[in-house]
């Protein structure tokens, strides 16, 4: 009897999940769908860049500043590289670095935030919270600029610095959300049962703080992505010859004064992705918060 019940559950549960995911997706508004499609295209470009791009990442294939043509769809840059190919490779570099940074920032900020919430009021929570307050009172871009001046322009330094600075915001959110969960009776019930800290964290707390953290991941990714692009644009982020959208804007910026829109392409590539992610996150937030202020 129970074995059968187990089987029924396994099937029911799995079908239920896919079904409900599909049902949720079907209710997504147009903007969210648009966002998801755009993100999918970007991911596709990033993964298959070498197969899609007509030319290599740093390959000099023609003269400098050639206008767009059948050969070079978006023209060539200041030393004769194909801009279209570099845009596609840029997806890989810019998105990849931003993603690694965000993941690292969540690993640091999320872990410490949940930890501080469980030990709320303890000395570690006090120290971490004060430190985070101080770090957050320096604007991220300014702080990053300063640290890059100290450590030099390496990608590893860039990732570490931004991840560390950004993790302060993740820490705040994770801590605040987890505190709301920690005070729940079901957490107290688990403590009274005698459950260990690990079990309580993984089974009772983490599953319940995921929705806001997932939404935050989207927003933090956008923020990190924009900050990296800004730093690269300012010439202190990702360094040539690596194809990167921020530095591509900077490299070609003189063209704009001649009425040539080339620097706008990589800038638009950045803007489109962040807008897409924002659309998806906005919809996700509406769904999970249950806040429907339409009515």
């Amino acid at each position, binding site marked *: 009897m*129970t074995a059968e019940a*187990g089987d029924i559950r396994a099937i029911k549960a799995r079908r239920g999940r896919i079904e409900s995911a599909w049902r949720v997706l079907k209710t997504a508004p147009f903007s969210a769908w648009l966002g998801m499609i755009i993100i999918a295209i970007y991911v596709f470009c990033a993964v298959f860049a070498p197969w899609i791009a007509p030319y290599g990442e740093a390959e000099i294939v023609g003269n400098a500043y050639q206008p767009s043509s059948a050969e070079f769809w978006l023209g060539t840059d200041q030393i004769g590289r194909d801009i279209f190919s570099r845009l596609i490779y840029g997806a890989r570099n810019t998105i990849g670095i931003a993603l690694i940074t965000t993941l690292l920032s969540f690993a640091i900020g999320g872990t410490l935030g949940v930890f501080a919430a469980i030990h709320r009021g303890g000395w570690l929570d006090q120290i971490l919270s004060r430190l985070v307050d101080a770090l957050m009172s320096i604007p991220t871009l300014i702080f990053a600029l300063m640290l890059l001046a100290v450590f030099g322009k390496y990608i590893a330094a860039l990732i570490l610095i931004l991840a560390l600075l950004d993790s302060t915001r993740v820490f705040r959110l994770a801590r605040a959300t987890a505190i709301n969960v920690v005070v*729940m*009776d079901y957490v*107290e019930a688990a403590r*009274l049962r005698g459950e260990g800290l690990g079990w309580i964290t993984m089974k009772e707390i983490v599953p319940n703080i995921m929705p806001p953290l997932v939404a935050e991941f989207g927003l933090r990714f956008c923020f990190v992505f924009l900050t990296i692009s800004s730093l690269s644009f300012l010439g202190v982020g990702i360094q040539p010859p690596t194809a990167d959208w921020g530095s591509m804007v900077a490299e070609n910026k003189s063209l704009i004064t001649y009425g040539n829109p080339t620097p706008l392409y990589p800038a638009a590539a950045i803007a489109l992705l962040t807008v897409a992610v924002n659309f998806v996150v906005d919809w996700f937030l509406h769904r999970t918060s249950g806040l429907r202020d339409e009515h």
Partner: protein
Amino acid sequence: MSTEKKRTKGEILLEMKDVRIEGFSDDKWHQIVKGVDVTLKRGEVLGLIGESGAGKSTLGLAAMGFARPGCRISGGSIVFDGIDLLKSSEEDLRKLRGSRIAYVAQSASAAFNPAHRLLDQTIETALDHHILDRGKAESDARDLYRRLRLPNPDTIGSRYPHQVSGGQLQRAMTAMAMSCRPDLIIFDEPTTALDVTTQVEVLAAMRDIVEQFHTAAIYITHDLAVVAQMAHRIMVLRYGKEVEEAPTREMLKSPREDYTKTLWAVRKLQMHERPSDDIVLRVHDVTASYGGEITVLEHVTVQVPRGRTVAVVGESGSGKSTLARAITGLLPPLSGEIYFDGKPLPRTLRERDKDMLRRTQMIYQSPDTALNPRQRVRDVIGRPIQFYHGISGQACDRKVVELLEQIELGESYLDRLPGELSGGQKQRICIARALAAEPELIICDEVTSALDQIVQEEILKLLMRLQEETNVSYLFITHDIATVQAIADEIVVMYQGKVVQQGPKSQVLSPPHPAYTELLLSSVPQMDPDWLTQLLAARSARSTRVPA
């Protein structure tokens, strides 16, 4: 006042016919009120009673021509003193509101604007609608404060909302509603958030003033005994429909519909006390504090016999929930001992071993926060079985199904998430989770107060049956005397962290009582419509006798 003349009894003031109200959720419009008729005469008080979700507040607001954001009045007619509210312009409705139809909200502390003084808020409508000039309005407001028996009626108006207590705010809000001498006042659960001893004063003040000014009222509540004191007629609502309507005395004496009868029946559940000397838990001289100077428990001694129910009663701040925290080890006592089966328990949770923890389980007030919304019933109930008894896999599942059957839910609930269950079902799951540990003592912290009356009764019956089957003991923490009367063998009365009185049920509930027990017991509203009148008469008699 000129309107006084118009207030002749018998004339119809409000007539609502086939009123339908819809609310928007899950991308659809749902009917909340499904065609209800209400007729109210001048000076008459109608009690609207029903459980949560019955649509009573929505209907009450509709009597003002008002629908909350996300709701709309979709059909029927609402005629107030010859004015069709549904056909009136928003501006005309606005002029009626406050001056001819007034509203008293459930939570006065939220409904008063924190930025303005009470007096200014009390007279705001009267000034805005040019009914009185400032000087007259202010002196009238002070007069109302006096009639509502607010302390310092001449100066209390200059205070801000956060500077006065909840019971006083509720009376101030009644004064605000009364300031334009409306024809109709809607009372929306005005005493639900108050402690029972405070409730009596507020009820008395509100009833008197409505009588003095011969104001018609709609009194919305879920508490039958309260409505019996306030209303001339009672209407029972369920799922947005009228169940029945009758004059108060008639309704109390002989309810017609089955649903109404079940509402009445809750009060009849009565367990006989069973004396016992086999003590399972003994709390001895415990003092506890949340840090700082104030002790929340002072020298508390309580005993729980095996297989029996000890009810701990008290109002908010009496320390009854703190007692539970001290017993479970969440709040280690500053001094005193706790013995389980005659052996002392370590003070903190950390020092207690698995078996000690297993023997005491806890059930919480709100099943919503007591169940992890992301765990299925199978895991919720299965975890203690696995954790304490080391049973897993199919054997564990089999135990879970047995427990589900024991709490009158079936195997089909195995894979539900808490969000897919009703409040009563969730509380049953919490009970099953406690039972799964096979405990000797279950601490029940206000386990029925978040539930509707009928569900409360089912849960209480279930708990009683389980006690017979498993011989488990209950430490039952509650503020509700009716529940205590129903299920307790022994009663502990607490006030401000101290035990005021304790003993077998029959002894505690029969006079003579210590002063606080007397106040507490006498403040519990009874189904008798004359209860409040008699109580007030008795109390004033005593207070005039004492100085003499």
